[in-house]
């Protein structure tokens, strides 16, 4: 399919670095799937859908900067939705979100709530102002925040907050955030033998987005993050490159 035209209806400044763009179409997606967002004349980047009709963008470089500066009436091209998305399962759920990683987890929380799941949400960020979707998540379950600087909630990394729960009582953990955070969460779940009860949404450099070119494959099984993922169960990731290295645009390994 050629990119579908999406017109921006509303722009919401979520945090000093994060912006939500609400558009006029609703791609038929399941939580955790992504769209390839074409900023004409600039770039095309993968973005999770944060609501059926929105993406939520953190400013980090050219593409995300241009998106963050968009105004109602501007338009973008969307290919997708692509990827597998989360598998919705279990009644007692923990959602662990770091930074803009909260984006794919918000529609997941909504859907799980509709299935009457009991949800604990651990929301992490560098500082209180960067906590994303705090209020919206609170509507789906019990939320606890963690900040690196202690400006709100637990002072420290999110695994410190996890420590306060009986992890064995959860049926499923859903995780998305910075790579080192995801690795730390996975290692902690592994200590408790719970990696097969966890799903992680990964992030790699994409070119094609549809499983053909190979830019996004992860070691050691050559799984494609864009097509076999972006969501993988923890047991598959345990002995993978997650948290060790990734590949840049040329395909060269870059250590974390």
């Amino acid at each position, binding site marked *: *399919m*050629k*990119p579908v*035209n999406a017109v921006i209806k509303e722009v919401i400044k979520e945090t000093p670095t994060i912006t939500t763009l609400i558009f006029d179409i609703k791609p038929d997606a399941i939580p955790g799937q992504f769209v*390839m967002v*074409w900023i*004409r*004349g600039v*770039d*095309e*980047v993968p973005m999770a859908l944060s609501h059926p009709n929105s993406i939520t963008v953190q400013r980090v470089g050219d593409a995300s900067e241009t998106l963050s500066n968009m105004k109602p009436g501007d*338009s973008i*091209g969307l*290919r997708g939705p692509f990827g597998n998305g989360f598998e919705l399962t279990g009644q007692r759920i923990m959602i662990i979100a770091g930074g803009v990683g909260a984006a794919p987890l918000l529609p997941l929380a909504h859907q799980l709530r509709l299935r009457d799941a009991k949800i604990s949400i651990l929301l992490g960020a560098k500082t209180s102002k960067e906590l994303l979707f705090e209020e919206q998540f609170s509507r789906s379950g019990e939320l606890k925040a963690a900040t690196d600087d202690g400006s709100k909630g637990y002072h420290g990394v999110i695994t410190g907050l996890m420590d306060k729960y009986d992890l064995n009582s959860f049926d499923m953990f859903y995780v998305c955030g910075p790579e080192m955070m995801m690795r730390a969460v996975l290692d902690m779940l592994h200590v408790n033998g719970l990696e097969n009860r966890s799903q992680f949404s990964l992030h790699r450099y*994409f*070119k*094609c*987005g*549809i*499983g*053909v*070119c*190979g*830019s996004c*494959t*992860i*070691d*050691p*099984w*050559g*799984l*494609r993050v864009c097509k076999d993922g972006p969501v993988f169960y923890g047991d598959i990731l345990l002995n993978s490159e997650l948290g060790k290295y990734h*590949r840049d*645009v*040329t*395909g*060269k*390994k870059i250590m974390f």
Partner: protein
Amino acid sequence: MTQPELSIELTGLGMKNPVILAAGILGTTGASLKRIAGSGVGAVITKSIGTIPEKGHPNPSLVALECGLLNAMGLPNPSYKEFNDELATAKEGDVPVIVSIFGSHPDEFSEIIEGLEGADAFELNLSCPHSQQYGAAVGTDPVLVEKITKAAKTTASVPIWVKLTPNVTDIVTIGEAASRGGADAVVAINTIRSMAIDIHSGYPILGNLYGGLSGAAIRPVAVKCVYDLYRALDIPVIGVGGVSKWEDAVEMMMAGASAVQIGSAIYDNFTIFSEISEALFTFLKSRDLNLGDIIGIAHKKVKQ
């Protein structure tokens, strides 16, 4: 009735079947190539590798159209120096690993061949349609094609395949140049130069503005190129372009292909390699034929 034999020897390489992964498809990492090696393929070809790291063209670099895939990846690769590790991993996969390489000068091809360890063969990419100084930019000039092939042959101790572009007036002229240069086989075809425009905005969709078309739409073009090359050359022709079903593979072989490569079709079907080679076996068996009986058969049916 005897069982048909799917295993082949192609330019000295033993393969368990004649179905090969095409260059640039899931060939960026050793692990990815190893995964495909385990899916019933006869051999795998890597992403095209050059002398220096390349980022490739800006995204969008691929769009799936109704008729096929349009891409302008722009030969992203980490350079041969960074690729040795990936190659070593790919080799664990138990099928021949052919390394696709590109450059703009014969010396660059020699440098890459010398710098890579363990390739079972090299495929010279003289055919990428959307690169300013590489690929088809050199692959349309028969003199340069012959020189590059000769340089590669002189440097390498393994077979050299030369991949041709269809974006020329007469592909046979280029195939003959490769053959004079000592190529062990030619591979046809790479993608066909093409373009798509976004009608909402007027922007060309690809970051590179134009790119190369692959998939079902180009199969008849590939069949004709293979047909013409088979007739003109004494070396094997390897067919590639739009093969997505066993019938397509048979057709390509009847035109003269000793083996087929598959790229785009992996888009909707990861098990395509085993499916096609199994179906090929069944087809041959049902007619009591061997691969050799169908390769180039179309030429015997027409008055020369």
